[in-house]
């Protein structure tokens, strides 16, 4: 295979982190990649260990074949402005700003929030999951309108971190 780029490795690490796998082992001509949860390390959080054998010391040149960008932009591809953080959808679903149709919205633009502040609701087939801000700061923009379908990882709310 082509020499893996930094980005390829990062995406593997990220995917591993999001999975519930114990370990991942990928071996090709140019790379051996092993990543594992490390239960003996005494760390409380899941720790990942990336170990690139026969590491690529050469500068990785841009791949001769570059995948074209898909034409159809999905909601998940919105670019978050610099210095801002986005609260993202945990899965596909319907976005709601209020816990119940007749309640006030969870948050308004200008509100100060903390990590644990609930900012919206994602519904999948009548199963409602509140979404937390996960960072503290000021609400700058609500990116999705009430009742709209959102995709996995789509930015929902913009926060300016404090």
């Amino acid at each position, binding site marked *: 295979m*082509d020499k893996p780029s930094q980005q390829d490795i990062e995406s593997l690490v990220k995917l591993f982190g999001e999975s519930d796998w114990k370990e991942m082992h990928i*071996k090709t001509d140019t790379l051996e990649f092993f990543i594992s949860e490390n239960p003996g390390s005494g760390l409380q959080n899941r720790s990942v260990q990336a170990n690139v054998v026969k590491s690529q010391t050469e500068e990785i040149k841009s*791949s001769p074949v570059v995948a074209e960008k898909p034409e159809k932009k*999905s909601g*998940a591809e919105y670019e978050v402005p610099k210095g801002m953080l986005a609260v993202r959808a945990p899965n*596909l*679903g*319907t976005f709601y700003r209020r816990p119940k149709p007749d309640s006030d919205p969870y948050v308004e633009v200008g509100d100060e929030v903390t990590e644990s502040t609930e900012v919206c609701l994602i519904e999948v087939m009548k199963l409602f999951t509140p979404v937390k801000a996960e960072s503290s700061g000021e609400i700058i923009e609500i990116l999705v309108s009430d009742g709209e379908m959102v995709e996995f990882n789509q930015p929902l709310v913009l926060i300016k971190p404090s």
Partner: protein
Amino acid sequence: MTIRKVLIANRGEIAVRIIRAAHDLGIETVLVASEADADSGATRMADKVVVLGPAPSKASYLVPELIVHAALSTSCDAVHPGYGFLSERAILPELCDKHGLRFIGPKATTIQSLGNKVAARKIAKASAVPLVKGTSNITDKEKAKREAETIGYPVLMKAASGGGGRGMFVASDEKDIDAQFESASKEAEEAFGDGNLYLEQYIENARHVEVQIAGDGKGRAVHFGDRDCSVQRRYQKMIEEGPCSIMSDTSRESMRSAAVKLMADLNYSNLGTVEFVYDPKRDEFFFIEVNTRIQVEHPVSEQVSGVDLIKLQFALAEGNPNVLPAQNQIVIKGHAIECRINAEDPENNFFPSPGRIANWSPPQGSGIRVDSHCFSGYQVPPFYDSMIGKLIITAPDRNAAIARAIAALENFSIEGIKTNLNLLLDVLRDQCFRDNRFSTKWLENDFLNSHVRD
């Protein structure tokens, strides 16, 4: 009901295949994808793509609620499940029915009843389909040993709710049952949520032959010929062809009729496959199971019958029984061979080989069909099945099809990842394969052991 917009609950080559058929019919397509599949041949073709969830299937493709929610939010009126994933789980058609969506496949109740292999055997027996000697559910190994004694060794231990070889083993004597019963039961429990096993007589040197069926849901069923899928490794098919040319015409006709009768008796609706083991020595066939989905190898039947089976699925799902052709309108002509192209390294125990395909150059020409979602620059994700495409060859007879398949494989270039292209070539050139002298164990036990590449 006319289908206007369909949601495709699958990925890879079958998603491409379904999108193509839908567009031919003027049906709009919405494709669901995991985050890892956001760019593929299928997402580039679909009218709309929605990202369901992260890469792992159980957080994306295997969540029926996400699929149905996506279909409703994008105003689809039908859902096509493809194969694998949720295609044989009754929960998806149940949810579709509940929310007014057409499920492109059999009824939920049919999927449910045929999904249990012990129940399916009873159904087949009621339609007078030949069965190998077998048992009901067996929960402990002492009973397994007593039953095996009655049937006679060797026996095949199988998962009651199983498929794909999981929870399955061949026992030549009591010791094999002692050694493997518990681990097989555990494997079945993990894979299918049902640890029940049952026993069947094991036919040695058997072939795997299956009949492609379509039913109108009102008691009429027709077949589209048979397929021989005996070139397998660990119960995974590698080469499929049709028709099965070592069967006598009498057996072939009676196998096809048995399959049609079974599905007609079930009021089977949409497409399905009845699988058999065929014993060439005795020229006898026995029922294995019914697959209640479109299968990977459906193009073999399309090529020899000239019928687009995916379009037929759409038409049948719209509810008009007249779209099902009469049996005498379906003419099986010529020979087709399908080779599954996998991203794996046969030299290294078939280790998966995901990664970026630097160059994808499929062969072209008369009688050559390639079904795939790949292109130069495509990244094969490490999360799913290793199949990256299928080469389907059609010719007037088996020998001509083999020659054409070899020429096509020689002109197939895939760079950047390891594939089984060379292995497929070696199988097609092998004298046993050419002479049609092989069983379902041949590839694994004989060919691969003696196979050394220059």
